[in-house]
């Protein structure tokens, strides 16, 4: 099994910085933003983005939280049981601009589940999606608004995402067959 | 049968090799080198010869519960297990507490022909424990009853037990007690212990058996009567019987094959095939009853063959019936637990499964011994073969055996009753053939045991 590195620590940080700027640009500032990461690594990335934004717009504290989607998955009967994580929504999502954050966008089903979970929590004004890696092969009509890197892959390949907070270092690899 | 059958090369219980000639339903000659005598040869080289087994405790269920077993099917099971005489317990419907019912069972046994059926009479009317049944009438009936038991239930009233013990002395009868103090075992399901606590099933305490045995022994001592203890199951019971015998009380005791092997752990799967009365106990009890059987404290093995239909076992434990079938497997279990373990010899097996039960049941004149002149009740066993015991090895109507799936040693090859084969070459002889022999049987019931 061969693995090749595609993004190192500095690449990842630059990508997140660019995404943070893009978010602020399309939102015309930080007001109304709520950043929700999809556990586990999506939450780490959401927190980094929130921190970067605070650095760009001083005096602004963008609410950041976690949105667990285990109960909304469509593959519960057929895949191994996952344990769920807590959902933390600081201050609610009514009428806000929710930025969903995940590490990898693949079939789109996780995002679909996240949208269902959001619906049960309230009614945001607008929902946007930020991902670190888009590897293609969508099974649903879902697209990301902010993408760190496009990495076309085959089904046989795997994307390994490592982040300091969860895995000890920042690295993204593609693992071949 | 006018032609002779001669068995060549059998191994006696004492390990001597012998030939046996059977003529006119009786053993006409026995000893080595009898091949010159006229007769049909049956080669039994290497097979163990025992006197036809006598089961002092069987439930044939007829009349009343023919969906579980009948006298015919029950005696077929007996024949397959090597039994030539069975004592049929009285908890039928109607209960065998009068002459008419015991004579009915007796007649059914004769018609079926597979084994000698000795009906057991109830001690109390309807097994209710309130009033004595027609004990003397049953004794002088054609069924010639000598063993009386309320088995299934306990004669719990000490006054009634005393009266019954005294009364049967008039005809050398014996009361066989199912020892179970009813108030201590209300709704009990299995042995009271660690397993019952874990499984949440009401316990059947050992002391409920021991109390009754101790009481009955004192009563029998007082009245000078014979007492027989059915299916004893605990180490304490063995001890009580042992000290009673030591001081000369005329008490005898039986143990079932399943109590020689199985423990309460079998219940862990809630498999009601292991639900029985008295219940399976612990390792300590199993060792004690084995030792008791080996040293003579426990006189005999009796099957307590208790057939039940599938729906009464394939259900929740607390709804299930108590009991296991055991005629077909008894000899193998005794072989496995007592002979192969070195606790007993085949001589001992002949004693505990034939001679002694015949004696207690009052049929010692016609059963339980291999002797020239005696009715030819014989069983030939291949003691070496190891077989996987399955449903196909059960010959009775019901299949509630706890031994299914076990590898059991020994198999009955031939069973002969009154000189005709009931089992030949491992297969049950056809009913119509047996019926013919039964009609021609000259030995019959007329010999008072």
């Amino acid at each position, binding site marked *: 099994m061969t693995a090749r590195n595609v993004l190192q620590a500095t690449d990842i940080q630059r990508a997140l910085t660019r995404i943070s700027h893009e978010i602020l640009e399309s939102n015309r500032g930080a007001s109304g933003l709520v950043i929700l990461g999809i556990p586990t690594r999506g939450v780490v990335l959401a927190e980094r983005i929130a921190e970067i934004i605070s650095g760009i717009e001083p005096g602004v504290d963008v609410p950041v939280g976690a949105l667990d989607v285990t109960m*909304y998955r469509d593959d519960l009967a057929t895949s191994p*049981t996952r344990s769920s994580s807590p959902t933390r929504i600081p201050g609610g999502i009514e009428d806000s601009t929710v930025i969903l954050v995940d590490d990898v966008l693949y079939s789109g089903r996780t995002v679909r589940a996240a949208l269902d979970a959001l619906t049960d929590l309230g009614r945001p004004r607008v929902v946007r999606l930020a991902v670190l890696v888009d590897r293609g092969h969508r099974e649903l009509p879902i697209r990301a608004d902010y993408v760190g890197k496009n990495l076309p892959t085959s089904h046989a390949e795997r994307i390994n995402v490592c982040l300091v907070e969860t895995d000890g270092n920042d690295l993204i690899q593609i693992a071949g067959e | 049968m006018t032609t002779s059958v001669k068995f060549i090369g059998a191994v006696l219980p004492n390990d001597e090799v012998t030939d046996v000639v059977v003529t006119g339903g009786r053993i006409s000659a026995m000893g080595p080198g009898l091949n010159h005598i006229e007769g049909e040869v049956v080669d039994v080289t290497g097979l163990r010869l025992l006197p036809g087994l006598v089961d002092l405790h069987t439930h044939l269920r007829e009349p009343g519960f023919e969906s579980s077993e009948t006298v015919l099917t029950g005696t077929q099971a007996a024949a397959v297990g090597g039994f030539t005489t069975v004592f049929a317990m009285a908890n039928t419907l109607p209960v065998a507490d009068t002459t008419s019912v015991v004579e009915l069972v007796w007649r059914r046994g004769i018609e079926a022909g597979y084994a000698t059926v000795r009906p057991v009479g109830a001690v109390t009317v309807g097994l209710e424990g309130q009033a004595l049944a027609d004990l003397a009438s049953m004794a002088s009936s054609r069924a010639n009853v000598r063993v009386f038991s309320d088995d299934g239930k306990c004669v719990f009233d000490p006054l009634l037990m005393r009266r019954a013990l005294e009364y049967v002395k008039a005809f050398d009868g014996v009361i066989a007690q199912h020892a179970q103090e009813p108030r201590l075992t209300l709704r009990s399901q299995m042995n009271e212990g660690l397993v019952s*606590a874990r499984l*949440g*099933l009401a*316990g059947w305490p050992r002391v409920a058996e021991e109390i009754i045995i101790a009481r009955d022994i004192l009563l029998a001592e007082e009245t000078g009567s014979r007492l027989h203890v059915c299916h004893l199951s605990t180490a304490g019971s063995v001890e009580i019987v042992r000290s009673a015998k030591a001081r000369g009380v005329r008490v005898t005791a039986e143990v079932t094959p399943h109590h020689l092997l199985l423990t309460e752990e079998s219940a862990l799967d809630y498999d009601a095939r292991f639900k029985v009365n008295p219940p399976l106990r612990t390792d300590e009890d199993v060792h004690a009853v084995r030792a008791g059987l080996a040293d003579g404290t426990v006189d005999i093995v009796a099957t307590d063959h208790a057939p039940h239909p599938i729906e009464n076992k*394939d259900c929740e434990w607390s709804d299930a019936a108590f009991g296991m079938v055991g005629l077909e497997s008894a000899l193998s279990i005794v072989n496995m637990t007592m002979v192969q373990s070195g606790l007993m010899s085949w001589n001992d097996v002949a004693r505990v499964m034939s001679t002694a039960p015949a004696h207690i049941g009052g049929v010692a004149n016609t059963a339980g011994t291999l002797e020239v002149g005696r009715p030819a009740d014989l069983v030939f066993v291949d003691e070496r073969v190891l077989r996987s015991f399955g449903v196909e090895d059960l010959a009775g109507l019901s299949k509630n055996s706890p031994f299914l799936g076990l590898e059991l040693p020994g198999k009955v090859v031939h069973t002969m009753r009154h000189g005709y084969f009931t089992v030949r070459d491992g297969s049950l002889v056809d009913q119509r053939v047996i019926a013919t022999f039964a009609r021609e049987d000259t030995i019959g019931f007329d010999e008072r045991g």
Partner: protein
Amino acid sequence: MQHLLSAADLDRDTSIALLDLAEDMAETADRPHKKLPTLRGRSIVNLFFEDSTRTRISFESAEKRLSADVINFSAKGSSVSKGESLKDSAQTLAAMGVDAVVIRHGSSGAPYLLAHRGWIDVPVVNAGDGTHEHPTQALLDAFTLRRRIHQTASRGRDLAGVRVAIVGDVLHSRVARSNAWLLTTLGADVTFVAPPTLLPAQRDAFPVSMETNLDEVLRSSPDAVMMLRIQKERIHGAFFPHEREYTRIWGLTAQRFQALPQKTLVMHPGPMNRGLEICSEAADSAASTVLEQVANGVFVRMAVLFAVLTGKEDL
């Protein structure tokens, strides 16, 4: 986890995982929209051979909150007819095609048979069998204890060092048994307190201590006291002379309750006999967890149903 038949089968990791799942389920209670789509399209049968409105409603709430289809099969016979056999009921349900069975039965071992006899091939959840076990009750009791003691830091925690006294008719109580297994697995110290006639005959049958003196046990300041319901039928079996004596010696009277440290939790699986095993003062106090236990029961049952109905591997 394929079936939940007894608390004795649950190891520490699985128990904690279930309690943590229940925490997630509990969070949904605060939302305006309490339902989760998780078990949509799955049908669950509540196969109740014994009357039990409380437990059935609790399971039904749990099932509905996970969007499952609920079928209530009241299999209780009447005084006239015994009702269908367990085997026939099971095979009927199998023929109808259900996805899971929650069974409550008067005979110990019935859920075990349902799970292993091959009459039906779906997950089985024991909602109480005879005097054997009531595993979801133990789970909700453990969940309640954990929340009261560790508050918001409950996730991932066990009950190490927590001292619990279970008082009452232990001998006939499946709740006591399941709690003895589960609480001990989670590290708690459990003591049964009852008259000698209502304690199991074997002292070493359960991993708990057994005492007969309630006052002495209360003086040792347990963290929680769980009172079990006393059934009046027990008087007929001569387990104790009459209720008044029972209450005087083993009841949580007002006097005993007042002497307890404030932090001592008072638990009861319900329904309560006020004035018999538990005084109203205790039942209605801030220390009482009775109502929380009921609420937590729904979350715990949601967690259990999720665990048995999703995934192919062990939880």
